[in-house]
């Protein structure tokens, strides 16, 4: 597989070399008629701050995170921006600051800001994101939260200088909930982990059940401590544990699991006492992007990404791609490389972005969250895309996912 990718990559370079468009560069053509760019190439510097965190090894070795997760998505978006930039006399750069576990993320952000980066993608836990946002409060700096899904970041903890391309837990739970209800799987057995982040997801699941007319027949907590991923005969043990753990539940249509650390959730499918599908943080999941998503032109995105990075595109890659593309789109539309016009355009009502989701994606003005359809997928293939038919909204159906304006508690600080 690796050899095949290298081969494709080499072919790609060859193609670029062969067509090397000397006379087609923007410099030789003069400025484009509608982009109002100056003769000089304008530079837009984008930063990417990644805070490394300690995480347990995933139960499945298929889910080990690639080292360039997210970064590769930003890099290919940069290339897209620069292809467009040839025609608008704009050039985009991406500089990456990786903060080691326990490192000083604020100092890393200051370094980026001092070297002229007005737009910074942040892949960091919620707590770090808030520290970063507060550290540059009042400055001409726009942060993109590309990874943290906490609802609080869009509610009472929302910040005026942060836009979120990552969907929050409420959007994900609503997207999944709509699909389950559309399937008439309305009785949910909820199985939850013992961690604070499980509680956050649980709250989103409860809210979705209430909004869309499902009922939670029981909530059952999985209390065992995390165990080593592998043991030589571990599967035999799990095969006995999981049926017992799910035994004796009230009648239900689907088991919904809230286990964000993936301590036991991935063990549930095919091992439950009752033969029921598993959804939530394991089994059928809601996500912004799936490597096998191919609708609405996504095939091209997937092909380009795979050629570029030699691996599949994951949700974080797409969330970073959207952030860099949003900056590029605003720069090309405003004909500017400056902070103020780009920031205003992204937040304004003229902004829209094609993100291979079947409709434009835009930012909600009440909390800075990217409104986007959410993919419902099994391991190998997408199953559906929410919002589901029949979940109506007075303006945009996609606003049936997550926190809508009337419920918003965000007062931008």
């Amino acid at each position, binding site marked *: 597989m690796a050899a095949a990718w290298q081969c494709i990559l080499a072919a790609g370079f060859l193609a670029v070399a062969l*067509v090397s468009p000397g006379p087609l560069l923007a410099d030789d053509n003069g400025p484009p008629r509608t*982009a109002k760019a100056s003769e000089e190439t304008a530079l837009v510097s984008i930063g990417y701050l990644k805070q490394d965190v300690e995480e347990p090894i995933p139960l499945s070795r298929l889910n080990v995170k690639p080292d360039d997760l997210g970064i590769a998505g930003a890099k290919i978006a940069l290339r897209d921006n620069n292809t467009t930039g040839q025609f608008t006399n704009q050039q985009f750069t991406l500089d990456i600051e990786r903060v080691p576990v326990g490192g000083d993320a604020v100092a890393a952000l200051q370094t980026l800001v001092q070297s002229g980066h007005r737009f910074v993608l942040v892949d960091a836990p919620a707590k770090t994101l808030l520290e970063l946002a507060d550290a540059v409060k009042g400055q001409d700096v726009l942060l993109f939260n590309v990874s943290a899904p906490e609802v609080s970041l869009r509610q009472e903890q929302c910040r005026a200088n942060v836009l979120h391309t990552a969907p929050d837990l409420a959007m994900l739970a609503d997207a999944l909930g709509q699909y389950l209800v559309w399937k008439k799987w309305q009785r949910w057995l909820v199985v939850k982990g013992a961690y604070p982040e499980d509680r956050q997801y649980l709250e989103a699941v409860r809210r979705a059940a209430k909004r869309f007319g499902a009922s939670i027949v029981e909530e059952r907590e999985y209390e065992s401590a995390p165990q080593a991923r592998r043991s030589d005969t571990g599967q035999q043990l799990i095969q006995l544990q999981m049926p017992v753990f799910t035994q004796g539940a009230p009648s239900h249509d689907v088991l919904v699991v809230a286990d964000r650390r993936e301590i036991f959730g991935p063990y549930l499918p095919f091992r439950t006492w009752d033969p029921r599908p598993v959804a939530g943080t394991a089994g059928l999941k809601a996500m912004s992007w799936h490597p096998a998503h191919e609708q609405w032109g996504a095939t091209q995105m997937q092909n380009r990404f795979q050629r570029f990075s030699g691996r599949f595109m994951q949700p974080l890659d797409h969330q970073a791609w959207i952030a860099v593309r949003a900056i590029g789109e605003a720069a*090309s539309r405003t004909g500017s490389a400056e902070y103020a016009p780009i920031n205003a355009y992204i937040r304004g009502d003229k902004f829209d972005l094609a993100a291979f989701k*079947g*409709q434009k994606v835009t930012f909600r003005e009440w909390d800075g969250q990217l409104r986007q359809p959410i993919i419902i997928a099994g391991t190998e293939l997408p199953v559906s895309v929410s919002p589901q038919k029949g979940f109506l909204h007075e303006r945009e159906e996609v606003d049936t996912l997550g926190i809508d304006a009337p419920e918003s508690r965000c007062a931008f600080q």
Partner: protein
Amino acid sequence: MRLFRLAAVFAVAAAGLCVSASPSDAYTVYVSNEKGNSLTVIDSDTLQVLTTIPVGQRPRGIMLSKDDKTVLICASDSNTVQVLDVDTRQIVAELPSGPDPELLNIHPSGSPIYIANEDDNLLTVIDLNTKEVLAEISVGVEPEGVGVSPDGKTVVVTSETTNMAHFIDTETYEITDNVLVGTRPRFAEFTADGEQLWVTSEVAGTTTVIDAKTREIIKVIEFELPGVQQIYIQPVGVRVSRDRTKAFVALGPANHVAVIDAKTFEVEDYLLVGKRVWQLAFTPDQKLLFATNGNSNDVSVIDVPNLKVTKSIPTGVAPWGVTISRN
């Protein structure tokens, strides 16, 4: 390749033996079925399906050659443009289109052809006679729609992620102008008089009319359908009548074709068709307009003078492109 040449010889021989007995106003309609990997062939007079022809993987953009003897088919997942002989209904050649060809267009003289390669940000120019690649032109991200001016001097390609219409000189292969249009431009159509270029923008939900000489935007047409949320209005195919009185725009998942007064740019009507209406083609006499409905697996037939949808004809799975022969 040798096999194809041989087939071509047979094809020519077979064509010589065939005598067409169809009346003068019966045209042949070819519809590409994106998921069905086939072409559905329809008689425009009887509105009956004549046959279904298996072709390459994921056929999308299709267009008859200027002599009406072959159909050029973008077989996207086979990474080639196939040449179908209309008489023998056999694939007789495959052109080196580059990866993932989606839409193509043909120079008024019959050659070369211009192919948008979505994956590679290229417009590939191929001599239809020698089958040689004449040029590969770097354009914006995800090129898609290709329009050729009636005088053959300009080819326009739209790039879906860069959101531009790139005007290219067909002699020098140089980009002379880039016009920013609405998000995700899908299709570019020159008017028959060569004065205007119409470009649809799927995600923006608009159609931009550009002055082909000054390359300035004349008008951005917006659509509004009662009961349909704005985000589902996603224009894809566009055709302007030869006398430039009417324009038709396929609105994708809004399941309607918009009828526009091409002089005033006012939208006059919305015709209900099938699900996810995609591409459009006039019959040569411009009395009928065929519209492909990708999610209901049919084509809608529109009576152009009366602006009525008169029939729906079942096709293969996920009809995408449509082209209509003079005979």
